[in-house]
């Protein structure tokens, strides 16, 4: 069964303390992996799309990487405004159609 698992469920960091969030997936026909940021009560905000193993994308303090089984979202020197839930989703192609599967997210809290 296609599945996306994110870890840890929650993470507390001190301001400036770098860390990584993990997204592992077991899907057939992966067509893309997406990272979103979601603030409480709001819609997910798009961060990155990764399509093939070895690909990396960067934006400000965030860097996303992709292997054949997992993706990492690296946060360098985080600030309190980086506090949010980070969602990972995969796009899997099955029998000529695709589906979008989300993980349950990692809740990040950055303390000043």
């Amino acid at each position, binding site marked *: 069964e296609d599945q996306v698992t994110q870890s840890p469920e929650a993470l507390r960091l001190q301001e400036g303390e770098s860390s990584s969030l993990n997204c592992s997936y077991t899907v057939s026909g992966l067509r893309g992996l997406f990272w979103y940021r979601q603030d409480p009560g709001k819609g997910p905000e798009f961060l990155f*799309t990764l399509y093939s193993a070895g690909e990396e994308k960067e934006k400000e303090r965030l860097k996303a990487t992709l292997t054949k089984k997992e993706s990492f979202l690296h946060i360098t020197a985080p600030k309190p405004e980086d506090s949010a839930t980070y969602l990972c989703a995969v*796009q899997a192609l099955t029998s000529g159609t695709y589906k979008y599967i*989300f993980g349950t997210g990692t809740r990040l809290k950055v303390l000043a």
Partner: protein
Amino acid sequence: DAGVTQSPTHLIKTRGQQVTLRCSPKSGHDTVSWYQQALGQGPQFIFQYYEEEERQRGNFPDRFSGHQFPNYSSELNVNALLLGDSALYLCASSSFVSLSGGISRADTQYFGPGTRLTVL
């Protein structure tokens, strides 16, 4: 450039009632997907509309139905509401990109702010 918009922002209904949620996609997008997100969970795919037809459906009962209009906007209808239908309903828009061999894939999905539905 307007992003994805949804209405209403909040909605309170009672069990057994029916509700309609609305979504306008991002400019240039022709595909709309609907998701249900319970508190503390990731979004769950309900269905997707392209060219005014339901193209894919997740594991949701027939009480959940939808429609897409010629201007690409979409509606989500839920009948016979249950307490468990209380959630944040998200609309996402994207544009189909055709690949060789006739297999299409969707581009990145962009989400609206959501509609918070509370069923009492």
